[in-house]
């Protein structure tokens, strides 16, 4: 049986042609693999004309407990991460001191006018501002609905952002130590604020500088 097939093939494809065929098929296979690999790697590499994305710091040495983690690009855990740990984090651009003695660590962000930030007092983190990447496939991209699912309805929702625009809202979960700035129309989160649990009034006073002067409370 085997001999019959072999003879048949030899009749159809002389030895030399068979070798050429298989060699060509091998080359083709290699080309296909290279093409597939290049397509997938190009997909993961941002276009050179795009703004530099926020560096992902999932490999940071700062440990964050799961219930306190609200973003994969979160750099710190409030009340736990120490000043020393923060100073070792990558992409630190600047540090300033407030009159109350708190230290503000400014980290790189894709925006020119607004930066990622961690504030420490008495040696530990008390506030973090996370700028959420706009690219829907980037690590850390977030939706308002995801937070609503996890945290429920916010204690307070205020419209008007000095930076992002008059229609943009701040969603305050003050008792949970979380606030978001985002656009309800598109369900996008632009910023995540993490802080010690407090009242909404305290949040607005301490960290609500972006909330527009004409902001009004929504009927919830």
């Amino acid at each position, binding site marked *: 049986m085997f001999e019959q097939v072999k003879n048949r093939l030899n009749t*159809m494809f002389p030895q030399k042609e068979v070798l050429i*065929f298989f060699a060509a098929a091998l080359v083709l296979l290699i080309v296909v693999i290279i093409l*597939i690999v290049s397509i997938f790697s190009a997909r993961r590499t941002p276009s050179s004309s795009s703004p530099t994305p926020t560096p992902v710091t999932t490999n940071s040495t700062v440990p964050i407990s799961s219930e306190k983690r609200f973003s994969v690009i979160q750099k710190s855990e409030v009340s736990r991460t120490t000043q020393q740990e923060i100073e070792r984090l990558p992409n630190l651009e600047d540090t300033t001191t407030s009159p109350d003695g708190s230290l503000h660590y400014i980290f790189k962000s*894709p925006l020119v006018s607004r930066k990622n930030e961690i504030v420490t007092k008495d040696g530990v983190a008390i506030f973090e501002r996370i700028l959420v990447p706009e690219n829907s496939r980037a690590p850390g991209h977030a939706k308002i609905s995801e937070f609503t699912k996890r945290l429920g309805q916010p204690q307070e929702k205020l419209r008007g952002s000095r930076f992002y625009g008059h*229609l943009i809202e701040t969603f305050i979960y003050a008792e949970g130590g979380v606030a978001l700035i985002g656009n309800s129309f598109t369900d996008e989160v632009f910023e995540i604020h993490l802080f010690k649990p407090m009242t909404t009034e305290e949040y607005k006073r301490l960290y609500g500088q972006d909330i527009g002067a004409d902001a009004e409370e929504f*009927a919830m």
Partner: protein
Amino acid sequence: MRTIALQIFLLVFLFVIGSIVAIQRFFFSPPSPVPPQNSTQASSEPKKIASSQVRTIQSVLQAADEEPEAGSCSTFDVEKFRSYGFPDPQEPNPVTLDPEGLKRWKAYGVAAAVKAGELVDIDPGIIGYWSFAEGINYDLTFNVCGPQNENVGINAPCATNNWQAGNFAAQPANANNLLKEAFDAMYGGSDEATVKKVGQGVIDKVAQRHPGTTLTFPSSTFPSVSAQTLTSKFNSSETERAWVGHLSRDDEIGAYVQAKVFKATLGPGFADSILYGYGDKQKIINTIKAVHCAGLTGGSTTPGTGGSFGSIPTLNLVVQPKNPDIWVINQATGQVFGARGGTSPGGTGPGAPAGSVDGHCLPTGTYPSDLAADLRDKYKITLSGYDTEGTKMIFDVVTCISGSRFPSLLGRTTITIYNSGSPHMSCDVANKVCEIWMPTSLNAFKFILTHEMGHVLFYTNSHETMHFTEFENAWGKEGGLSPYSGPFKKDPSICGGKSIIEEDYAELVAYYYNPNSGGKTGACDTRENPPNSLFGTSDFPLHLDVAKAVL
């Protein structure tokens, strides 16, 4: 046999390559942009200029040749002032504002008053009114101090705080109470560096606006001090009290303080509350309207250099308070269409879209029998209060830019456009609907309509779709496209260095779709016959890249 083997090999090779290309296109390529509609290819019929367009051009030319009268403008909301207890302003307005004060108000006061008015939700005319009612006439050096109740000059120490400082005639006691809030609202911070910069700016402006006068008390150098520190020492220290007084002379701070002071009593009894000794309600409303309109529509008499216009009227618009459950956002910028043709101050430079509102796209063929239905069915746009000509004006705009990505970007919401009020827009997020107010009386109707639609696109599409990060980088590096959305070219000396990113995006959309439109963007805009920022200059390449990528 060899031929068969080669054929099989080729077939397999082509199949595999074809599959890879198909997979790549299907899964990884962005949707192809709709090619812009070129009006010259859109129809073989002879071009026809719609009567609506002829009317628009005529109205622009007519408006350009006239010096707008103080007190005569379309942005003044009579209805709103009636609700405050005022009678209707008289026509023609008998009030004549002090000419020097009017000049200063237009040059330095309007931009700050509009910004403060937007933040506090109060008409800019009310904010500016007090300075004229008090006879201060926007004089930076004015200083009423002490028991004599007279102007003692900018360098007089004040033992009491019962005085007024120039420009907006803000009382420093009020300024002190609102100092931190005013800085945070108008400058985004009240720290030492910001306060020093603003304070030193006041000292510099005194010398600049009033040659021969130098601010020397308490010093000719403003100290490094935060707003909070000044406030804490206001009552106990003559020096700190003087610095607060000088800060209230800053256009932005003074406007905000006055806006808040008047806002506290704004309501049905407002007309009675500001009567004092300044005449009757009729005189007050006449004065408010004169100030409002002088600032918001006052024209420049600067001769044009590149177009057909002897003068360039300017137009700014006012915030209209709406139902609190509906968002209200900022207004459009008044612009003047440049003359059509090669010597236009605008441009048709590289990258100008083929399908644009002015210059490139003239209505062709005949209009559909039911324009309103066409707008509703194709673009989810509903019109309210427009006659046939008004409907055509909107139809022309939408049709001209329909070859771009505009329709798909607009597709996330329905829009109702009203022929009433002052130009502005709002969105009701719960119901995913937006509204635009666009009276046909505007002489820059099409530019402003695209500006307002730019706001709608900005808020109803994701940051990713709108290339927000790329845009913010352009805005941060190149400054604002116009003094309205600035700081214009990063220069804060024009219009107080306004800095509103959402307005800059709306300006981007308007400039892109109106490549032949230039013009001033407010009375504070001192530029001579400015061109279209995107196509008439090479100052905003990053902005232009965003426009091309998005629109």
